[in-house]
């Protein structure tokens, strides 16, 4: 129905799993357990007991961190016992997620240098050209119009300043 199909259709065929739900569950529960241990230690250092003015700053968080620790152990045990081998993510899916996640990281990185408007124009246009197989002029038109609209809404209508870069400086904003 539109020309963004090719990449997207691949997913429908089954592809090997990157890792299973079981692995993911275990990894997340271990990460949570480690995180909560760090927080327990940090709050303990801060003082999690009873000070002269009532509970100390770490009193509430340390208890929560301990609860997370216990709950993550429970999740870990369940994950090992359930042994769910259905794939957490398949290779083709992982590719699609990477297709959006990696450009997103580049985009956020670029905001600091190019300003949000230029970075967004490049981001949207790149997406349309590489993923949607649009001709470059269409991609440029859509992305520039869209960001021009946002520029109007934020900078002129609501007076909310967004990060700007060399181009906007050059234009006098």
């Amino acid at each position, binding site marked *: 129905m539109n020309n963004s199909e090719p990449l997207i259709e*691949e997913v429908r065929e089954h592809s090997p799993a990157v890792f299973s739900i079981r692995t993911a569950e275990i990894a997340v529960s271990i990460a949570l357990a480690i995180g909560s241990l760090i927080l327990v230690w940090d709050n303990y250092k801060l003082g999690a007991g009873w000070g002269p003015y009532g509970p100390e700053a770490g009193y509430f968080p340390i208890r929560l961190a301990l609860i997370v620790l216990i*709950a993550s152990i429970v999740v870990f045990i369940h994950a090992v016992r359930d042994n769910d081998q259905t794939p957490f993510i398949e290779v083709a899916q992982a590719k699609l997620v990477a297709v959006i996640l990696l450009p997103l990281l580049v985009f956020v990185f670029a905001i600091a240098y190019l300003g949000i408007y230029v970075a967004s124009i490049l981001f949207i246009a790149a997406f349309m050209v590489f993923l949607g197989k649009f001709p470059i002029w269409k991609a440029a038109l859509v992305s520039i119009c869209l960001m021009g609209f946002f520029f109007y809404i934020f900078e002129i209508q609501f007076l909310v300043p967004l990060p700007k870069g060399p181009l906007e400086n050059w234009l006098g904003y």
Partner: protein
Amino acid sequence: MEELNSLMQGFGHVLSWQNTGLMLLGILLGIVVGVLPGLGGPNGVAILLPLTFSMNPTSAIILLSCIYWGALFGGAITSILFNIPGEAWSVATTFDGYPMAQQGRAGQALTSAFTGSCIGALFGVIIITFLAPLVAKFALRFGPPEFFAVYFLTFCSFIGMGKEPKAKIIISMCAGFLLAAVGMDTISGQLRMTFDFPELLRGFDFLVAVIGLFGVSEILMTMEEGLAFKGKKAKIDLKVVFKTWASLPKYWMTLLRSSIIGCWLGITPGGAVAASFMGYGMAKKFSRTPDEFGKGAIEGVLAPETAAHAAGTSALLPMLALGIPGSATAAVLLGGLMIWGLQPGPMLFVEQKEFVWSLIASMYLGNIAGLLVVLSTVPLFAAILRIPFSIIAPAIMVICAIGAYTVHNAIFDIWQMVVFGVIGYIFKKLSYPLAPLVLALVLGDRAEDAFRQTMVGSKGALGVFWSGGLVGTIMTLAMIALLWPLVSSLIARLRNREPVLAV
């Protein structure tokens, strides 16, 4: 009849040109937000919240709450025409809505979905109108222990009623509380869990978290499923609308049942998602023709939509009366109240009469206006979904990034948003619920303050929570809510029946 007087005054405020305009704008934006994947009630409101910082609170809440109503309406469009639930609460609507659209009865399905929604919402608003002032008046007697008890009840019922594994609900909730605690401690002024990163001094903002958890993660999920939108054509003409309306009275029982279920689950934090499934299940159970369900039964569309809207609306009751939100979107709205400088809680009904009653009045008008708007603009919104995903996905990411940035004018927040997006994606795939995390993040500081004030008063004895009749009752209720699944399965086992386990 004091309520009616105040309500009339509220209508007066809402019916100014500016506020009516904001109301319509909110509904239109809300429908767009509800239709698009990756934008939903909670993050739609979160992204627009920074734009309302300078507005007066009454106009701001009208705009934002109307986005919420619009999003509730919008979810139904994609479910029925595209078999893609735009929102989790419209999943149950796809069961019968999409078959109806396949049979060429899309107009009928949409009309009944929207009308059901409107009826459910109005039912919820009427409950709010008469119940919320009473609850607020009652809650004026609350001190810190009672407030902590109510928070505790909220979170216990989340754990007790949640469909996800209990340990995961607990993790998600405690993670929310911990995130809320990062940064400067409000009482002692000490820095907590910042690990010497200056960026963490401010702590985590719930708006940024919501935009990442609900927006970015949703786009990742949509991307992974490789969605290709293939929709049915929608045409609604007045004849279909009136014919459908004429057939609705005979389903009054379904509507009433769903409204009650919805209100119940909305006030207690079960939320719109649970309500829509329960509404559907009950309608099927009590229907004279249960075999029709799943093949395009009109009740199958009415029941979940009515329940979802009733729940979505009544979720604002505890938010207004007690300062405790019943859903993720309500939590974001509550955060908005604090940003606009209003103190949520029972005093709101005393100190901010104009605000509260304008909001309630705008709920009546917003839902009725929403019904008319949505009926007349369905084809337009269905067309949005025909825009290729390769434009929609990056555009939504850009909107999310702008939303995250505008909260504090910090680029670091955009990075935070991305991290929350990945966390949200992993959590969703492993069925960790996100709503408790957001709720805890919003309420964290207040709950902790209430707890510590209580502890200071009692010199650290936990017995204070059972010292008075009121606080004791609430705490006991909380315990029951927390342990209910255990108790009920135990009772079932004792009676030697099949254990009723939560699915």
